[in-house]
């Protein structure tokens, strides 16, 4: 087997960069630290591409499918005799693919940030955090065992927390970062419990052992059941809960729109392309277990994904903050990926959904990063997030305009752009397994096209807004990544994923299903047309449509009041009805009991103090009476 030992540097280099920038950042010049971070990432991007080439086209794997290669592994912590947490590097099709995705997007974002964040206070801190994030995310995808994944899972959560709260003097950013961390933390609790249950039953954390269809995970599948479902199903559902939180699926999606308070490059990197797909990656990583021993859990995945995609698409149609629209769109697209995994089977052509999901993950990373970076360029130009403040920007921002259009067409699924291919595979997979979900996804495809073009038309066409400063095109450090990603969005659709990334590592045949593709393109075109009608020129139509769906619009505009429910649960239930009573109980019952014991002792001693009157004659009287009585007692009674 080819030697992949050098891959250890892929996560390690960003970590060293983080330490360097974090500890000595304020001593370096801001520009130098930015360049250092970018250079470090460029190196590992090259390494990752090299690894991908070597892994996929090295020529040794093609015969029997792609094997899982443990390039590096070391024991980090011994737990029980059998359980130990390792740190290592596992290379298989999806992890190699993720390496490519992460390093590409991350590098783009680094370059972009050099321009976008120029002059910001804390420039070097920003790059330190980006390096920390890159390290954590790379560590996550190459994890050799589920506990390593959990470790890096937490680390990406923290880097996300730090980056959302980058503008720490802004109260809304602080709130958003707190919310993101706590919501995902709650989901991670499920993940951890899932890991505990899983490891208790299988006595291993190791992915290779776990996902080996002849391994212990599968021999346990028929063992103890709880509430009608097998233990494995429960553990998978719990583990999926972690994925739901990180990937902002319903009902743990509330943090993602708020997370847009962070700097835009961060949104592009973390909250669009890489971290939020960690949930999808987690399910894909554990896929054999899901598919073969816990089909119920897989159904949960499918339905959660489908519901979230529809839910988010509806909300996206009503929002006006461009980054929030994109955030809901991200949620919707990830719902697609989840659904694809949920309807997939294991092995061969059955694993179409799996392949489609990974394919979509890949293409989505490109076009969504492009969208966010484009949005960043727009915000950079007009200093506003709200699309009602924009209009007719195509004249001022030609490059941004073109790349943004490409991205919109891609996400809408217009051939021959990449989004078309990946979405088509997902729809095909859904069609073969569940007609209801298939129908939902068609609807979502139409909605997606509609809201994306609503965004596009409102920003670049529509009314000619008067700006205080004439908007100008972003510097080349920002436009170059846009162009590269636009190229990526166009060409990645032609990558033969069915030969590279499959559920069991073996390639299978798949072709375009015209029965699925043609209607989906039509639906998308319909959505685009509808958006054109409403938003290409300023007219009263949008308000009329909104009036038509009166209550529906209001609910969707307010995000179906999920945030309010959360605020109720945290502020009211946890603070008012749990914590405050507990704090009260502690002070006024537990502590008061202790104080009561003390004050009782004091009272009693005050009472018996009178015996010690200080009057010698009283003492003498007591002494003599006592002596006489004792004498009588001993002489006459005890003798």
């Amino acid at each position: 087997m080819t030697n992949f030992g050098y891959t250890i540097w892929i996560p390690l280099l960003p970590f060293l960069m983080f330490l360097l920038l974090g500890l000595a950042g304020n001593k370096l010049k801001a520009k130098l630290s930015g360049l250092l971070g970018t250079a470090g990432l460029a190196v590992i991007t090259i390494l990752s591409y090299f690894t991908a080439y070597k892994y996929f086209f090295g020529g040794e794997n093609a015969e029997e499918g792609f094997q899982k290669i443990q390039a590096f592994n070391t024991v980090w912590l011994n737990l029980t005799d059998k359980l130990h947490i390792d740190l290592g590097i596992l290379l298989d099709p999806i992890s190699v693919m993720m390496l490519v995705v992460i390093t590409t997007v991350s590098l783009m974002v680094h370059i972009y940030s050099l321009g976008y964040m120029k002059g910001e206070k804390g420039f070097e801190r920003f790059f330190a955090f980006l390096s920390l994030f890159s390290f954590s995310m790379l560590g996550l995808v190459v994890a050799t065992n589920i506990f390593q994944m959990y470790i890096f899972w937490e680390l990406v959560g923290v880097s996300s927390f730090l980056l959302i709260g980058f503008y720490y003097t802004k109260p809304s950013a602080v709130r958003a970062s707190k919310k993101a961390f706590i919501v995902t933390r709650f989901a991670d609790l499920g993940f951890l419990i899932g890991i505990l249950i899983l490891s208790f039953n299988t006595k291993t954390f190791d992915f290779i052992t776990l996902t080996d269809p002849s391994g212990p995970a599968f021999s346990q599948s028929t063992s103890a059941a709880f509430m009608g479902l097998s233990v494995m199903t429960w553990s998978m559902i719990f583990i999926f809960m972690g994925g739901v939180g990180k990937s902002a699926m319903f009902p743990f999606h509330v943090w993602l729109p708020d997370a847009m308070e962070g700097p835009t490059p961060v949104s592009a990197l973390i909250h669009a392309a890489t971290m939020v797909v960690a949930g999808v990656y987690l399910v894909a990583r554990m896929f054999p277990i899901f598919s073969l021993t816990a089909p119920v859990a897989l159904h949960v995945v499918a339905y959660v994904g489908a519901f979230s995609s529809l839910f988010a698409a509806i909300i996206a149609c009503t929002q006006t903050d461009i980054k929030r629209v994109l955030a809901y769109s991200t949620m919707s697209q990830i719902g697609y990926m989840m659904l694809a995994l949920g309807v997939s089977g294991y092995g061969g052509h059955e694993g179409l959904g799996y392949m489609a999901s990974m394919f979509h993950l890949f293409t989505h990373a490109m076009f969504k990063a492009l969208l966010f970076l484009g949005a960043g360029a727009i915000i950079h130009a007009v200093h506003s997030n709200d699309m009602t403040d924009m209009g007719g920007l195509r004249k001022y921002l030609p490059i941004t305009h073109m790349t943004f259009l490409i991205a919109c067409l891609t996400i809408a699924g217009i051939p021959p752009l990449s989004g078309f291919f990946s979405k088509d595979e997902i729809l095909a997979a859904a069609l073969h397994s569940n007609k209801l979900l298939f129908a939902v996804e068609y609807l979502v495809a139409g909605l997606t096209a509609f809201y994306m073009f609503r965004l596009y038309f409102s920003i670049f066409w529509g009314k000619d807004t008067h700006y205080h400063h004439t908007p100008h095109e972003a510097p080349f450090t920002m436009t170059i990544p846009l162009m590269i990603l636009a190229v990526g969005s166009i060409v990645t659709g032609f990558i033969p994923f069915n030969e590279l990334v499959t559920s069991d590592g073996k390639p299978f045949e798949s072709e375009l299903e015209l029965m699925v593709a043609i209607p989906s393109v039509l639906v998308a075109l319909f959505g685009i047309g509808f958006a054109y009608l409403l938003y290409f020129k300023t007219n009263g139509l949008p308000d009329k449509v909104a009036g038509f769906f009166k209550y529906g619009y209001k609910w969707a505009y307010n995000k179906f009041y999920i945030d309010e429910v959360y605020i109720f649960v945290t502020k009211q239930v946890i603070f008012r009805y749990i914590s405050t009573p507990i704090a009260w109980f502690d002070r006024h019952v537990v502590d008061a009991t202790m104080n009561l014991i003390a004050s009782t002792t004091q009272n009693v001693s005050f009472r018996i103090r009178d015996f010690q009157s200080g009057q010698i004659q009283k003492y003498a009287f007591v002494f003599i009476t006592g002596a006489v009585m004792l004498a009588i007692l001993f002489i006459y009674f005890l003798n």
Partner: protein
Amino acid sequence: MTANQYMFILFALMIIVFSVLTVTTRKILRAATFLLFVLVSTSGLYFMLNYQFLAAIQLSLYAGGIVVLIIFSILLTSHISQKFESPGFKKVIFSALASAAGAILAIVTILDYNFSATTIAAKEVNMNAIGKGFLSVDYDGYVLPFEVISILLLASMIGAIVIAKKGGPAKVQTTTLNKE
């Protein structure tokens, strides 16, 4: 009845009567006088018991020394004509009860007990024997208590002087006052 029985009855009556008077009289100087009578009568008892040396000590030290000391202190601290207010009725009753109970218990016990008379010949207690006893380390020798008591006497002498010496905290106070 022999003469010494009369003598005993006389001393006994004096002791009992004057003891009781000592603790009940309401004039302090009288109490001291009655105490003197008790101590003198006691020394009479010592003569009867053939302990002449001790009787002499009793007379000189107790009657002559301590009582005088007490009278001096009375003169220093009290008005001679002053009558004590009588102690509280409850206090009297309870104290009397306790004392009477103790006395009765002791007397009953004494009467119950059968003292066997001894036939051993009495030892002559003369000054020679006493002197030897004090300064001997043999059996019947008391040199250690003798030494201890001499230290004690010295200590109490110094102590009495120090305590009674005018001054102490009060003096410090006055000097500071003067300085101001």
